[in-house]
């Protein structure tokens, strides 16, 4: 029976996390009933007032993601998401290694480098809207993204 391996954690010399502030424990549990006041949850935005995300960063994000914020609601959403994520900083992670995958103690399967399938050009091209012979057709590249007038003023206006 395979359980999550402990070895790696022991090696990392993990420091126990900071305990959440103690609460009145109420009467003694009988051991198996879920009793006592509900555990505190991250309620939403943390107490520290967040730094507003600068317009430069917002524009940079729009460029990286090739997705636009569209309106102030979108920016608000990002702001709230960052505030929510800031709660992570309450956790003490000294000496803890980041975890990429729960299967980190196993080796990924690598198959032999033999061609076993393919020859499906026609099927793959069928799903594309614009093709020429066996090519996907794209508009000209290396042209920086030009923002629509509305978008430019919106982000600049939120400075």
């Amino acid at each position, binding site marked *: 029976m395979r359980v999550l391996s402990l070895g790696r954690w022991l090696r990392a010399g993990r420091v126990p996390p900071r305990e959440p502030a103690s609460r009145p424990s109420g009467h003694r549990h009988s051991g198996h*009933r879920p009793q006592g006041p509900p555990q505190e949850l991250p309620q939403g935005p943390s107490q520290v007032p967040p730094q507003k995300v600068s317009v430069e960063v917002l524009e940079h994000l729009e460029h990286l993601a090739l997705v636009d914020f569209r309106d102030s609601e979108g920016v608000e959403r990002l702001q709230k998401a960052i505030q929510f*994520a800031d709660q992570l900083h*309450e956790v003490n992670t000294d000496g803890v290694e980041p975890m990429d995958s729960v299967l980190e103690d196993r080796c990924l399967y690598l198959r032999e480098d033999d061609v076993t399938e393919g020859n499906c050009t026609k099927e*793959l091209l069928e799903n594309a809207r614009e093709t020429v012979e066996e090519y996907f057709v794209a508009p000209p590249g290396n042209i920086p993204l030009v923002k629509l007038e509305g978008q430019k003023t919106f982000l600049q206006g939120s400075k």
Partner: protein
Amino acid sequence: MLRSSLRQVSAALKEGRVTPTELCQRCLALIKSTKFLNAYITVTEETALKQAEESEKRRKRGQPLGILDGIPIAVKDNFNTAGIETTCASNMLKGYISPYNATVVQKLLDQGAVLLGKTNLDEFAMGSGSTDGVFGPVRNPWSYSKQYKEKSVPKSHSEDEEYNWVITGGSSGGSAAAVSSFTCFAALGSDTGGSTRNPAAHCGVVGLKPTYGLISRHGLIPLVNSMDVPGILTRCVDDAAVLLGSLAGHDPKDSTTIQDDFKPFELPDLPDVSKLSIGIPKEYHAPGLSSEILSLWSKAADLFKNAGAKVVEVSLPHTRYSIVCYHVLCTAEVASNMARFDGLEYGHRSDVKDSTESMYAATRREGFNDVVRGRILSGNYFLLKQNYEKYFVKAQKVRRLIANDFGKVFGSGVDILLTPTTLSDAVPYTEFIQEDNRTRSAQDDILTQAANMAGLPAINVPTALSERGLPVGLQFIGRSFQEKQLLTVAKWFEKQVQFPVIQLEEAERHDNGVFQHQKSASFS
């Protein structure tokens, strides 16, 4: 007949009491009359009937492919199905016809299952209500059940049904609704943060999230590569074991599947839980947990204690941070996974032609809804060079702490954890949409997503009806790759609680009532 379990109907097919074609036709007819549930995006009537015909020929020759031969099933619309539109409930993939079958779909078809159609979901599986897809929200079949209608205060006859209907939960709401309303005998969902167990709880069906790495994700349009798993939705635990048996195992096309041999298993007829240790994690008594569910949770713990199991309170101290951790990791992986949608090779393509980048940007603006775009932007923020350590790597570290918590608890001798699945029963749609998607997901995923963080198997078992006449389920979380033990405990619990069958007028009309579940005193 439609209300029987998968195994029962399979036996009926074997004995010739019903033919695959009849079964398929009945299911298709029921899908038509329950169209108002909006559970299906695509109904593949022609291919289903063809598959049923093939199955009938095989059965006549005495050569069925297995227990699933001829069984109608449904698949969530984020699994690729060859020749069938796969949309993920998004404008980005509307009209996209997959050129291949996802491995799990292929496995089901190879065993003769009849694919009835693709079910509705939240756009790209992002959400906890199945309300945010472009094909509209899915309605919970229980909204139309006798049990719910009896308990709701009648305002006016017509107002009732139109405004009182409750959500299915998400994001595999369509699949859960399809199974719950008897239109199919099993359905595939996906589970990234609770997307199979949440709707299973709200729709009163069994929702199994297998261990990460057990079932292939090849063909499942990815949301979070390190947490996604295909989920299984059925009406009883034995059926879930059957599906699991057909789907689990190494897939060379998905290198994140483990290479260990998987042996399909059958659950004991009389499961015994007296030698087990059941853990009750105190942090799962989360704020907002309804008192009804709290009391059911307590009673369930008592049930186990009275059966001789050792029931202990345990602690998973980082539970309160798991939703924050999930938020960061999920948005980061989403930002990466959604980058493939640029309109060039498949999917929606904008008419903008000025430059590649402007075409991509316009395509993505037109194709994605606010939820998806919001997550992409947040994810990119967390992945910026200046934020990478602070957010992404930090979240990965917190993830290890969460996984460690589970490891410690299981290492101390606990076999199975018992927790609630959701904070309350299903809420009415009008109430649900008052809050935005992110807030809702943060609230609703709280009890389910730590299992995805740690890759552990978990299952929702419908437990009882709430005061409003809606289903409530409890969740069991097991050790990695110990699905047999997990399902055995779930089966025992299922037998104890005797969850009532939904009384749905439409289903009763289509059924000849051959197989009716025994309805005994319910557990509440």
